[in-house]
């Protein structure tokens, strides 16, 4: 699974939007959406929300986890803890980017949140790298890592696979003492 696939999957998450048109219920494979009534917030899949937003037919309601305060709190917790903290959503980084790209004007303090998100991302990547380093150095058979988001797993999967393979090959090459 590469990042594009994660992106694709993430767009199946729900988000609430405020439509400015009316339309009866739409029946989709994963469940029906609607009815759409002007000014009445409702939950739609993100791919539909993006489509609607791009055709100026809705406004996004800022999700609870994408407010300035909540992101700041996430960052604070991440800084305090050695291990990974649970994220509100498995696709939090990809989704925040998608939402910001499409509907920055609907997110209060959007620019600041983007910066905070970037900080959070850097922090978690640094943690991830250091923990991989520790794993390789300690020579342990396995390591347990919790609360990783989908993108992060994707990012390290290929690298980890090949590098572990290399290590194994090298260890095989070195004769046992």
């Amino acid at each position: 699974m590469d990042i594009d696939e994660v992106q694709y999957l993430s767009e199946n998450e729900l988000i609430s939007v405020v439509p400015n048109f009316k339309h009866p219920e739409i029946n989709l494979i994963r469940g029906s959406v609607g009815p759409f009534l002007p000014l009445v917030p409702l939950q739609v899949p993100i791919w539909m929300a993006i489509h609607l937003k791009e055709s100026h037919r809705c406004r996004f309601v800022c999700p609870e986890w994408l407010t300035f305060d909540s992101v700041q709190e996430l960052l604070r917790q991440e800084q305090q803890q050695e291990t990974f903290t649970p994220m509100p959503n498995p696709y939090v980084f990809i989704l925040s980017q998608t939402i910001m790209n499409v509907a920055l004007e609907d997110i209060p303090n959007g620019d600041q949140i983007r910066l905070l998100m970037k900080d959070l991302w850097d922090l978690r990547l640094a943690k991830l790298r250091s923990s991989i380093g520790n794993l390789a150095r300690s020579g342990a058979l396995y390591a347990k890592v919790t609360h990783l988001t989908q993108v992060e797993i994707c990012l390290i999967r290929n690298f980890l696979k090949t590098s572990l393979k290399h290590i194994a090959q090298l260890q095989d090459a070195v004769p046992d003492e």
Partner: protein
Amino acid sequence: MLSVVSAHSIAGLTDICYTKDGSHFLTCGQDGDIHVFETKSDQVEHIRCADQCHCLAVHEYHVFVGTNRNELEVRSFPHGDSLPSLVHFTQPVSALCLSNSLLFIGTRDFKCVMMNLNDDSNKMKHFDGHQAPILSLNVYEDKRWLATSCCDGSIRIFNIDKQNLIKQLNLIQKSNDIETAASLVKLDWDKKDQMLAIPVKNTIQFFETEKWTRKKTYENDSIDEAINLIRYSPCGTLFIVAYVNGQLAIINRSTFDIYMNYSSKDAVCSLAWNPIESTRFTCSTMAGEYAHVDVSEYLSKPTSTPSDKLDLGVEEEEEDEEEVVDELESNSNDVEMATDDKEVIPKWFERASSMLTETKPIELQESFQSTSTSKYLESRFLLWNNIGAITCYSEQIQISFHDVSYHHSITIDNKTDKYSVGDLSLSAIALGSSQTGKLCCILYQSWDSNMKEWTMNTENNEKIELVTLGGDFLAVATSQRFIRLMSLSGIQQRIIRLRGPIVSMSSYQNHLWIIHHSTQGLPKEQAMSYVLLDIDNDHYSTGSLPLTPKTKLSWMGFSDSGKCYYLEKSGHLSMLRHNKGNQLEPLLISNLKQEAEKNTTNYWLLGISDFDGKFQVRVIELRGQSFPDLVPWPLVSIISLPLALYQIDTEKSQLESDYLKMKLFTHSTDEDDFCNNERQCLIKMFALSCKSNREYRAFEICQLMDSIALQLAVKYATKSGKITLAQKITDELIEQKKEQEEKQKEIQRSSSPPPPLPLLSSSITISSSFEEVKSTRTKAALPSGPFTNPFRKKAVVNDTTTPTNDEFSQWKPSINKSRLVATTKTTTQSEIHIESTTENEEMNSTNGKRKVDESEDNGKNKRNRLQQFACNQ
């Protein structure tokens, strides 16, 4: 240890005072809030005032607050409405002292000023000579003395009338500001012994008032900290001393015995005696907390006061002294004149002082358009209704539609016309300007491409107060108390006169509803009346509007079903209900403010929908604001409100509220649906009262039921072992119902040919009844979907007329204009319904019988369902 209660979120100087009647006490703190506590019930009201409040005083219906805005703010008491500020300085007010109607103000810019609140002359008396910010003030009104303590290290005593300095004592420590001062030096007068008590470091020095020499000193050797304040009890037997380290001592006035030592973490910085219970006082600390202290046990001790006799002697001498002072002062008259000349009386002050005189009638509420935000805002909403919103930016007016497929948004330049009121309907936009007197109507859906817009100007100084758009008319309210009715194309129709200045108006199809001020109200209250016009049918009804005490109107309008509602500032939402005599009965529906406070928000009411036995309001939730902002565009929430019944948290009240809602808000044409819902609700209520062993109540509920529900009730009662109740119901109610229904049948038979339905009832088979149930269910399925929005009707119409096409590309603007017509029909239909209820009931009973047959066959099934029903509760 003092048992303190936290009040203000930011630590710092916290001031406290009582109202004269002792019913409330107020605190103000560095977080900029004033808290009004009701002494008896501990109810708190928060008034947001400024960024910081330094000191406050309360005088009858006004609160005076010294804030960081360098002015003495005036708020109405107890509601906290902002009034024009009394006086401006170059620095914040640091000390206030109120004695009867004399208000003394000490500021950080070295000024000390007196104002007479009962006097219309608006004069300020200055007491000059201070060279640093003023720490505290204390007035001895009988002697006309004012003592001030100042950061320059001096205590000054002034004569109030002559405005001259009597004595200056350099005692206290110098400092450069109040924050850095070692102590607050709150001094007090000993009115029994005629002494001035001054906190100096860790001592209290008592100065006799004759020659102003030190008479005695109080000192507690064990405490080295400075004393913040001294305050005598109203009875004069003891005084309170508060230290900077948080200690508080209650001390006998004459013997200096310490009765009690309290300690707290933070220094007590203000203290006020309860004016009713003179044995209690309340103090506030530097941490924004307050505490009540009772000293009655120390007062009961007999204290020999030889000073009573002394008093007389001292007073006599005092008079002599005053004469001397008088002589002295006569010399300084020139100086006094000079200070008088200094007084500049600004215009706003005249206005403020005119408000202060209580003899004048209450200020009448200005006219407003419902859902418009304050006209003092730079960018504001002129209107928000079901169709769209009109917003006014500084030089532009924008009309945006909620459903953009209906019409694109319109922007109008507002530089020259200065439109200040507006309304929006499905076919037109009306804008009016109170300044330029211009009226503009934009027919944005007009088929006539030449006539999209017309304007009109008012004449003879008539100012436009409000405009409103009905289905096919435009109403303009003017300052001359006229309502000018025009057609949408601008044909002037009639001019209706009002009996008072208009407050607000609203329209719905061909109804126009106006609220205006009527006569002088009860003391300090407004009185309002309403006029309800049915323009097409030529009905005119008036009445007075019931209001809760001392409140204002904050919203009025029609609900989606066309009922009149109004909201007061106190949060009470009321409805005018048409009763059988076609009179309007005012009913309290809900308290919006209380509901909002449950979620710690504030609701900005936009509209009400009351279809199908549901009561929902459309609101904007506000957090810490009084008006919604334009950016970001506010989110509308739809909230279902319970009726304002007592104990609404209990299940009993909730069911009662549901039942009442059903009775009040059902206009549905589907009689079956309504009956089912009603039965369901009644059975729930019945089951609940059975479970809680309230048989009498259960019986009363049975009296509201029809025969089908009664059968169920009897079954439930027998099942749950209430044999007597079941017996009573069958004996009294079922017989009675049957008789009634038979009578009705007879009446019907005599008047009209028998309906074909009853014949079926006896010979119906189970299979056919099932089919019937099925068919009724499918019928019911359409309208039973959750109702969320007034646009629903349109959606339903769309469903039926156009084949549903779910593809996005098929979106087309399709608002059904016939909706209006359709809904008018429903109102007339409902009247017909009232007339035809008897017929319907009879039909129901026959239906009922059929269902009973079925129910007996499926007896077990039903019983099970009923039991489940009971369990679910």
